[in-house]
């Protein structure tokens, strides 16, 4: 191990990871330190890989890790770049400095960006170009002697999206438009635009960190890992990743409900076989025979709130429904806003999820006036679909219990829950907000056990508790 500087940086980095919610044990920290002694520290990607291998044990933690790594171990520092550029200019004056204000202007920059977006390997490195562009366009003067850095001003100046038409024309070069080739080019360019935006954002963060300290920016920039992201504040990108997390959870939820069922039953006495066997012992039934246990068939009924106030949660519950549908033979799903409709038909196994979502919003009859009304939804459910709930049914209600001050129809819910084998309510709101405003959480919670379910961690905990 060399010097205090490296050890200090290592310790600070590990502490920042812990603050960002990554569970790094002291033993893992030591492993990382041992790894540092073995690799070539001047190879930045090796260093990143070494830290990742020893400290990051879940894919969900990787984005946060990468962001912190870029802050703690920046690819360049401004002081170093300035020194290097000064040296380069002395050595070979004709070369235009990439960050310079004169000569080399916006059209040239856009030209180079277009080549980078096309994946032209000769056009140089994306990261380097992003750094130069932040230097050129991202600076905004602030209070005396200070400056602010913004990524949107870089992206506005270069506006990578508007380059698409040009790139397409160039890349397809006479081939027919609208076909497979165009789609592939489009996809590649879109991916590269995203990479460019990320590179710009990373460099802006680095510059801010240089001005105001790594710890401060780290705390504000890193999003919590996926399993701790609030369902109500989830972004589209998170949802896509969540989809992959939900499948194993649904499978576990399914097995948990099955196991609970399995323990409850023993085979009944098989009278015929017992009497037959008793003939050998002169009619005395010395050994009894039981009927083989019936194969258990758990049934699941899901009622989910699909209103706008919980739209991202609703999206998640539909995801969960979809995943459960693949696991359970008998799942019936119902969606409601102020009236209720069966939505099982949209989730046939093997159906395409994205398509199911679109059809669901267009075709299902869940909205009357558009304001959530739990009471009415429950009453309509009891009227129309009462047969869905039987003694083998597990009832799962997903929603925030905010009913716009309408009558809650507690009796109906009590009757429904009474007929089901188990009933659970998952509420995406934080517990302190229950019962505020129009929330009926406690009233409903007294009938059906209510669980706070704000993120994947809590959902996992709920599933664990079922066993």
């Amino acid at each position, binding site marked *: 191990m060399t010097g205090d500087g490296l050890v200090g940086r290592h310790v600070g980095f590990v502490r920042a990871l812990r603050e960002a919610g990554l569970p790094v044990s002291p033993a893992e920290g030591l492993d990382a330190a041992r790894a540092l002694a073995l690799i070539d520290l001047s190879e930045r990607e090796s260093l990143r890989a070494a830290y990742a291998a*020893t400290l990051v044990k879940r894919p969900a933690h*990787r984005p946060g890790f990468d962001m912190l790594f870029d802050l703690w171990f920046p690819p360049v520092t401004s002081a170093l770049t300035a020194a290097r550029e000064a040296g380069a200019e002395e050595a070979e004056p004709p070369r235009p400095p990439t960050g310079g204000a004169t000569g080399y202007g916006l059209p040239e920059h856009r030209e180079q960006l277009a080549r980078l977006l096309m994946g032209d390997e000769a056009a140089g490195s994306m990261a380097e170009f992003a750094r130069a562009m932040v230097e050129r366009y991202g600076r905004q003067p602030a209070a005396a002697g200070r400056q602010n850095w913004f990524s949107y001003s870089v992206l506005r100046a270069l506006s990578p999206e508007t380059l698409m038409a040009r790139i397409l024309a160039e890349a397809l070069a006479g081939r027919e438009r609208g076909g497979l080739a165009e789609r592939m080019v489009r996809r590649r360019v879109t991916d590269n635009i995203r990479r460019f935006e990320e590179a710009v954002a990373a460099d802006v963060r680095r510059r801010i960190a240089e001005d105001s300290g790594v710890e401060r920016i780290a705390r504000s920039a890193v999003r919590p890992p996926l399993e701790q992201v609030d369902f109500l504040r989830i972004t589209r990108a998170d949802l896509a990743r969540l989809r992959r997390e939900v499948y194993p959870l649904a*499978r*576990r939820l399914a097995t948990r409900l099955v196991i609970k069922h399995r323990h409850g039953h023993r085979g009944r006495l098989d009278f015929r076989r017992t009497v037959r066997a008793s003939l050998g012992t002169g009619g005395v039934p010395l050994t009894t025979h039981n009927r083989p246990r019936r194969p258990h068939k758990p049934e699941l009924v899901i009622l989910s709130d699909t209103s706008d106030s919980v739209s991202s949660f609703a999206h998640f519950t539909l995801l969960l429904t979809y995943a459960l549908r693949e696991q359970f033979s008998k799942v019936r799903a119902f969606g409601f806003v102020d009236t209720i409709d069966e939505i099982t038909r949209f989730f046939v196994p093997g159906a395409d999820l994205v398509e199911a979502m679109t059809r669901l919003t267009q075709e299902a009859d869940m909205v009357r006036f558009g304001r959530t009304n739990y009471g009415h939804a429950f009453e309509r459910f009891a009227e129309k679909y009462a047969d869905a709930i039987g003694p083998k049914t597990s009832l799962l209600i997903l929603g925030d219990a905010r009913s716009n001050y309408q009558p809650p129809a507690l009796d109906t819910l009590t009757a429904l829950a009474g007929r089901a084998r188990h009933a659970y309510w998952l509420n995406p709101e934080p517990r302190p907000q229950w019962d505020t405003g129009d929330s009926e959480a406690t009233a409903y919670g007294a009938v059906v056990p209510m669980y706070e379910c704000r993120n994947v961690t809590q959902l996992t905990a709920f599933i664990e508790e079922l066993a």
Partner: protein
Amino acid sequence: MTTWFASPSDVRERLAAVHYLPDDAIATSVFLAGALGKPLLAEGPAGVGKTQLAKAVAAATGARLVRLQCYEGLDEARALYEWNYKKQLLRIQAGAGESWDETHDDIFTEEFLLERPLLRALRSAEPTVLLIDETDKADVEVEGLLLEILSDFQITIPELGTITAAVRPFVVLTSNATRELSEALKRRCLYLNLVYPTPERERDIVLSQVPGIRADLAEQLARMVATLRGLELKKSPSIAETIDWANTLLALGRDDISEATVADTLGVVLKHASDQARARKELGL
């Protein structure tokens, strides 16, 4: 302790020599697993080369590969060791006149021990790569069994005593992440999250695995597969399927990826009807 690799770039060269093309993360993790003597847990979707990585490490270092395939219901007797009780019974019957002590001392010896993969890897005198495949398929109890072996590289057999590895094996665990492995197990391992390769790397993989394919076709193929992976599919095409696709195109004598070619051969990479329908719709085939 044996040295497995000298540096990450050494890993890259030697794995490339056995036709496995690692990226930076793979090369560094493999190097560290060897240098720190820790097991390497490779997690990722099916068909990104997790098992292949272990095989490549064995081939590149000339080590013996011992494989333990995990499945539901795997137990100590299948993973670690078992006494050959049939042979023991024979031995007891054969030595009819002996005293109990003699027999007892004799039937619990090497001769009656059935080695299973874990014990075989520990006792091997030559360098060994131990591949514990699909760890997530095994029951949670098996993870407990692995903990002692993976942290100290030793096991205790009551009749024989503690057996410590003469040569530390290079351990690779793989997992498809169908369930979360326990924290205790993850803590003892180096973690490598394998994802689908970049189009550039996939092109190189195709070129090295499919001799006779033209470079530009491989490039188009890799981009096409990357596009397919970008769709929301139930099962994204694996690297192995990309290679199958390359072989198919070669066998059919197609040298360009056109709409017709893709539509004809989509079944090689997409194996769900709904995935195929989706790809046809999104790509306008």
